[in-house]
């Protein structure tokens, strides 16, 4: 199959190995891939911010950013440049080491998760056989950054925000994990590319006619939104209560790391949803199955943006939950439902029936 990303990468691969020794070429390749992912990360983060601002504007009869470039497409780049040029300032009594360390926890967690993303059949950095597990494990490192940042800021509002983020992320990770497990049961694999290949023949997992799959998707969307600390679960940075929550004291690029990581996390959650429920890079009804030149990555991106739009819709229409309601929702409703759902799915698979 002739595919654009494949041909480019093969050309670069061959060229690198022809001009330098094998070891050096491998290392150069690693660096190139890492740089490509970093660039992707930055672009995706910045344009998600722009998309959020535009979506918010559409919800609120505004125009949104429209001054820098046509339709404001360079607005977030200008913002990023401004943030880069700003002084990294910290108060006198902060714990300097932890304060400076915290943003990197958050950003690295998001970046590492990106490594296993199956953008398309040929476009996947690292296709390990425990891909789902890896994604899930790595994305939970981020909360350490929030906790450390809030603690080191030496600010009571930051501390409250950090504590909230801790309890929120730890609680909702259970639901995310269990709903992912339900889908892993159905697909029979932990490898992301394998999960998608299963859906090529059997149809997208959510449309295979299993009610547990639909329940799992709903729970995943709720818990996933909570995982990314977005409204209606944005208690961590509840601006009308805590100012800016855990990142109140951060400025410049350190703030930008927290800010971008939130959007990248949204991208990660949406990607997991697409892989597990909506067939990853597969086209709907196989309409581009036979077209060899069509970049499958496009389908992946389109689906991810659909899910992201859904999450933005939540954010701009729902009020915020209170902290005890947040925990009640998770421990009294989502978690029990999820456990029953997992057992139900196991029975469905075991008896080979459609429910």
């Amino acid at each position, binding site marked *: 199959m002739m595919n654009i990303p494949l041909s480019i990468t093969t050309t670069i691969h061959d060229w690198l190995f022809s001009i330098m020794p094998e070891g050096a070429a491998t290392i150069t390749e690693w660096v190139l891939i890492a740089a490509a992912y970093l660039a992707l990360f930055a672009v995706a983060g910045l344009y998600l911010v722009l998309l959020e601002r535009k979506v*918010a504007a559409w*919800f*609120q*009869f*505004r125009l949104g950013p429209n001054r820098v470039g046509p339709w404001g497409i360079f607005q977030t780049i200008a913002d990023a440049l401004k943030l880069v040029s700003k002084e990294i300032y910290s108060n006198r009594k902060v714990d300097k080491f932890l304060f400076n360390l915290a943003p990197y926890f958050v950003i690295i967690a998001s970046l590492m998760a990106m490594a296993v993303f199956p953008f398309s059949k040929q476009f996947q950095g690292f296709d390990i056989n425990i891909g789902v597990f890896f994604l899930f494990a790595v994305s939970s490192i981020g909360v350490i950054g929030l906790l450390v940042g809030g603690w080191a800021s030496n600010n*009571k*509002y930051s501390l*409250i925000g950090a504590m909230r983020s801790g309890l929120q992320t730890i609680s909702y990770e259970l639901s995310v994990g269990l709903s992912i497990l339900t889908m892993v049961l159905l697909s029979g694999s932990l490898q992301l590319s394998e999960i998608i290949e299963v859906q090529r023949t059997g149809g997208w997992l959510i449309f295979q006619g299993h009610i547990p799959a639909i329940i799992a998707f709903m729970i995943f969307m709720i818990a996933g939104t909570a995982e990314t600390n977005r*409204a*209606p679960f*944005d*208690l961590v940075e*509840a*601006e*009308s*209560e*805590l*100012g800016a929550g855990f990142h109140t004291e951060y400025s410049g690029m350190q703030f930008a790391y927290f800010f971008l990581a939130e959007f990248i996390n949204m991208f990660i959650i949406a990607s997991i949803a697409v892989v597990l429920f909506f067939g990853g890079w597969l086209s709907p009804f196989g309409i581009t199955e036979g077209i060899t030149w069509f970049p499958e990555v496009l389908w992946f991106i389109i689906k991810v943006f659909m899910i992201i739009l859904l999450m933005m819709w939540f954010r*701009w*229409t*729902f*009020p*915020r*939950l*209170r*902290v*005890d*309601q947040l925990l009640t929702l998770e421990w009294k409703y989502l978690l029990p439902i999820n456990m029953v759902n997992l057992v139900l799915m196991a029975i469905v698979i075991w008896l080979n029936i459609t429910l």
Partner: protein
Amino acid sequence: MEQLTNNKIKTEEYFINMGPQHPAAHGVLRLLLTIDGEIIKNVDPDLGYIHRSIEKMCERDSYQQIVHLTDRMDYLSSHINNGAVCLAVEKALELEVTDRVKVIRTIFDELTRLASHLLWWGVMGMDLGALTTYFYAFRDREMINDIFEETCGARLTMNYYVPGGLMFDLHPNFVNRVKKFLVDIKEHLPEYDRLLTGNVIFQKRTKGIGLLSKEDAISYGVTGPVARGSGVHCDVRKTHPYHAYDRVDFEEALFTEGDTFARYKVRIKEMWESISIVEQLIDNIPEGDIKVPTKAVIKLPKGEFYQRVETARGELGVYINSTGTKNPYRLKFRSPGFSNLSVLNHISKGGKIADLVAIMASFDFVIPDIDR
């Protein structure tokens, strides 16, 4: 064993300064919170950050000038504040304004109340995390501001009422624009209900939060929508009608639950009532003079005069103590926000920080009104 008990993890209460600069305070209100984890143990409001000694300045000014100062108290109900002073002065002078003035003042008061409640609705949603409400509300409030701007030239500090009448006559477009606005707002208010009122999270956040009993509301001197949410019959427009309120048909919004959601419902209902009042009056504004002539220097007779009006936040009282000169000897404003603030500690104890924010949003504080 002893070592174990000594090393036991302890928790302790701590203080938080909520304000003077805080997004939920809507101004420079400083709340000293004593907090145990997320639970509020004590709320201690600290005032004075926007005190401009308006009452003292009034002792220096003539009665026409005092009217202008009242815009700066509760800036969201500036027409109503102006009206309070004008009514007090007219009462002292035993001046009877024309019917036209009375009706126009009633329409302007109700439009002001509508604008104020619209802003409150937007901000209430914003405090609870639903940012979109803010823009919905401002879309409609903008139309009212435009109507005001056309007639009196100002959008916030109106200065339209003067003792004895009004400063200018109505703009020729006024009636048409108000009618068009009424059509729009009646379409938009149900939209608001769909966006926020029916939301499960919103109801969970407001129902049963900040319970204020009827007895407490009366003993703390709480007025306005907050008291009416607890079932206290206290609408000055009903109990002591002024302007043209005795000739319009409207219902006092009363709910008995006494929680944040009841206060929310009171204001939503008041918006509908305001619309109905304006509708009743807009088609038959009587002809007549817009001003009864007064002397250039108004000297009130010796004595004490008191006038109460219903602002968007509650009962505003104006007390004038005159010695017969061109300035008042003492002028005191009984502002609704100040009395309402006093009950905050009582009803927010034991709640979470987020509850305090919801309660404060439902009280609709305007800090310059509390501090003056």
